[in-house]
């Protein structure tokens, strides 16, 4: 049935909480209010105040508590509201959550999920619009998931909750109201498996988050020009499904990486370096990068739109790839 991304996230939480009484959720405004976007609406009524808890505005305590709960046998889903607030608890995530098992040994399991709403959303400004995946790709020990469809969001959140490793689960704010087909009942999507969102033969676009939709729009435009674009959604940034990208490159020999965060030291920088290290012989041109300008996200809507890549900018990068064919 047709479901919104927001409903799909909520359904995953609800079904996992019904399935396993070790699962609980806590964070700012998740109980009566049902989270600021409405993701956890109705959860308090169904699962009660023991398993659905508001916290104070205390991001470091939310993460630390999730870690302690996970180590002692619960499966907490901690919510940080905005992805931007992961930075408030950066040390707790980077040093503690990610490294806990490494530092303490195999007797320590950290089955926790950190949910956050990320990305630009029409004038949210410099501190409520960031995409944070690339910051945490630098933290070995974490799993990082960034789903782009309702189907992926539900299946991957279920896998995240069942995982024995800490997961950073990034939900894009602009995707919450998008709709897609989601089957009734239980299904999971394996962590670390990319999805080809559109097959093509001329250029591969690896797009993350909101950029998947924009890459699909770009592919539509380019088809009219006779250019066939393959759009790959990694879905999981860590672990990254290299094989799906490599298979595509063996066919297209051209790649563009599209992301919403700042260009410098971003996801594109990492993927471009990795691809040229491991697939250099397959490349018929330099690797293209499309990313936000290296500037804080501006409040002014027109300038926000300018800073973040749109379908036109992705299409431009694809054309440039083919023009540089060597």
């Amino acid at each position, binding site marked *: 049935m047709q479901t919104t991304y927001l409903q799909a996230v909520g359904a995953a939480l609800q079904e996992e909480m019904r399935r396993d009484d070790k699962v609980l959720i806590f964070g700012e405004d998740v109980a009566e209010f049902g989270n600021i976007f409405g993701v956890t609406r109705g959860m308090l009524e169904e699962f009660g105040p023991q398993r659905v808890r508001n916290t104070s505005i*205390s991001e470091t305590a939310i993460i630390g508590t999730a870690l*302690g709960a996970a180590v002692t046998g*619960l499966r907490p889903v901690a919510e940080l509201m905005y992805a931007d607030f992961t930075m408030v608890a950066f040390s707790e995530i980077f040093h503690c959550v990610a490294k806990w098992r*490494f530092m*303490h*040994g195999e007797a320590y399991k950290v089955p926790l999920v950190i949910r956050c709403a990320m990305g630009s959303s029409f004038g949210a400004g410099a501190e409520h619009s960031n995409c944070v995946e690339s910051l945490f790709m630098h933290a070995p020990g974490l799993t990082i998931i960034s789903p782009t469809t309702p189907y992926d969001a539900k299946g991957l959140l279920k896998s995240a909750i069942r995982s024995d490793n800490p997961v950073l689960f990034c939900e894009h704010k602009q995707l919450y109201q998008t709709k897609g087909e989601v089957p009734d009942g239980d299904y999971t999507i394996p962590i670390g498996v990319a999805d080809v969102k559109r097959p093509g033969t001329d250029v591969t676009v690896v797009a993350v988050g909101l950029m998947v939709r924009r890459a699909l729009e770009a592919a539509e435009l380019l088809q009219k020009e006779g250019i066939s674009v393959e759009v790959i959604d990694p879905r999981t940034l860590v672990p990254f499904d290299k094989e799906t990208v490599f298979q595509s490159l063996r066919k297209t020999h051209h790649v563009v990486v599209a992301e919403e965060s700042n260009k410098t030291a971003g996801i594109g920088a990492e993927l471009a370096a990795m691809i040229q290290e491991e697939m250099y012989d397959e490349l018929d041109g330099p690797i293209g990068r499309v990313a936000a300008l290296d500037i804080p996200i501006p409040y002014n809507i027109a300038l926000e739109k300018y800073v973040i890549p749109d379908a036109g900018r992705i299409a431009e990068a694809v054309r440039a790839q083919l023009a540089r064919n060597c």
Partner: protein
Amino acid sequence: MQYTAEFLKGVYRDLLSVRLFEEKQVEIYALGKVPGHIHSGIGEEATYAGVLATRKPGDYFKITHRPVGASRILGTPLETMFGELMGRSTGNARGLGGVLHMVSRENGMVGFSGTLGCDIAVADGAALSIQMAGTDNVSYVFYGDGTSSRGPVHEAMNLAAIWKLPVLFICNNNQFAISTAASYGVPVANPGADRAAAYGMPARTADATDALAVYDAAKELVDGIRAGSGPAVLDCKCYRWRGHFEGDQAKYRDPAVTEEWRKKDCVAIMEARLQEWNVLTAEEIQRIRDEINSEMDQAIAFAEASPEPTVEDLYRNLYAD
């Protein structure tokens, strides 16, 4: 005498186990057998021996970087501790975690962090598990006067208070944050207890040169927590005998004051009292010391004979299967 002989012997053995571990640590560090830095906790053992005498099965523990020998009280095998301390594959983290992570999960230890303060809320999480299970267990969390001013400590206290979590916050006030005296860095006399009122928590202070005084104060708070009254704070005042790390000459403080505190040695105080109360004789005390030292020497020999971790070990615990 309000304590049983068995109880007193137990507290003494815990106290001494930590002291001798801390001394041994310094000794083998000087011999170059330990990588990195160590932070000797000599003089601070009574906080742990006293507080932990109130524990029972099912409780959880978050210790801190000083004294790491407290892990021994909780039952971490010496082979594991020295294996980890010396960076060998027989350590709990195969020698990849190190001195700040010598723990045993099976004894209720939740782990601890070298980024002091970031791990305080881990005790809240353990307490949440206790609360969900509905038992009368307690989550014990130790931190120092230096850490007491960090934001995450206060966030953890605040959350524990609003959720009425069964947490005992124990501030081990050794009076120094590296070179910065608590009298400068903390605006109140008792870094833990004086801030408890802000969270509506009961608090006690204890003279942590006396393990039994610490026990009495902790017992009162722990009894309340087990009865369901929510979190509490215990402030234990002692003195850091040595520098922050080995090699720190501690020139920032008055040696005469250090000398005064050394005279209030928590181990010597306990030994005198046990002899006075006819619980242990001088010979028995010596036998216990010899026993613990010999166990440690065997564990060190075991660690030295243990293989170094391999490159494969690097990746083994990064993720669970």
